[in-house]
């Protein structure tokens, strides 16, 4: 923690704020995961963390290390990029799987089945 003492206040303030906000968003998302009623609703909740939540913390980290090491520390961008690209894969697969199971079990949550497309 000794390094943090070298940090000027102008940087420390936003860093602190971003950290707390990011963590707060992640928590909010996770709370949603617990409280929301249906699976499809819950699916939305974690995206709070995967977008703005982690984004804030990444920016905080970039800012913190850049100021501390007096150079541009940008590799955190990669994590953001990876998050953006990977999250849809999981979510789409999961949503599709849930949809399939709901359809099969005739759950009211699932959207009405469309007439099977005639392939000719």
């Amino acid at each position, binding site marked *: 923690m000794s390094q943090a003492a070298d940090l000027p206040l102008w940087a420390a303030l936003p860093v602190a704020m971003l950290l707390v906000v990011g963590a707060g968003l992640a928590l909010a998302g996770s709370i949603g995961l617990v409280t*929301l009623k249906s699976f499809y609703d819950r699916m939305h909740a974690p995206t709070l963390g995967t977008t703005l939540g982690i984004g804030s913390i990444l920016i905080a980290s970039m800012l913190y290390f850049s100021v501390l090491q007096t150079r541009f520390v940008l590799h955190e961008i990669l994590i953001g990029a990876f998050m953006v690209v990977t999250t849809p894969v999981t979510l789409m697969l999961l949503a599709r799987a849930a949809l399939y199971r709901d359809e099969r079990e005739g759950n009211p949550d699932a959207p009405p089945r469309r007439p099977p497309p005639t392939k000719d």
Partner: protein
Amino acid sequence: MKRWFPYPLIGLGLALLWLLLTESVSTAAFLLATALALAGCGTLLRLRFPKARLRRLGSVPGLLRDVVVEVFRSNNAVARIILRPSREDARRSGFVRVPLDMRSPHGLAALACILTATPGTVWVDYDSTDGTMLLHVLDLIDEDAWVRIVKDRWERRLMEIFE
């Protein structure tokens, strides 16, 4: 040129990836970055990664800005929904079918990323026979409004870039 740089933008991205990872801007790093980017594009070629015909790159920054704004907005909205369970009864979530004109896999992928990155919407399914996408929306007030949002705000601009 095409043969050596089948995916110029991706190649650039890969080179950037290397430079960011190593946090270095030395000659060696650049050389290695180039080599790796080339090799990476080579693997993509083997994987038959579709080549994009990119047009109107100028509209990309605007799109990104809108995405960021939208992310902020919907984060806020969803956070409110989650943290105020009292209004839970008033909220209705549901599926929306959006007919898409876009067929480019890149465009569709980008659209999926955008929709997933904005809390409140999840891309659920896609039907290639008629190009409809099934979207789940957390706070579904007006289905047509959502169709319009998707088509106007995102699809049109993505089609400009990718098709």
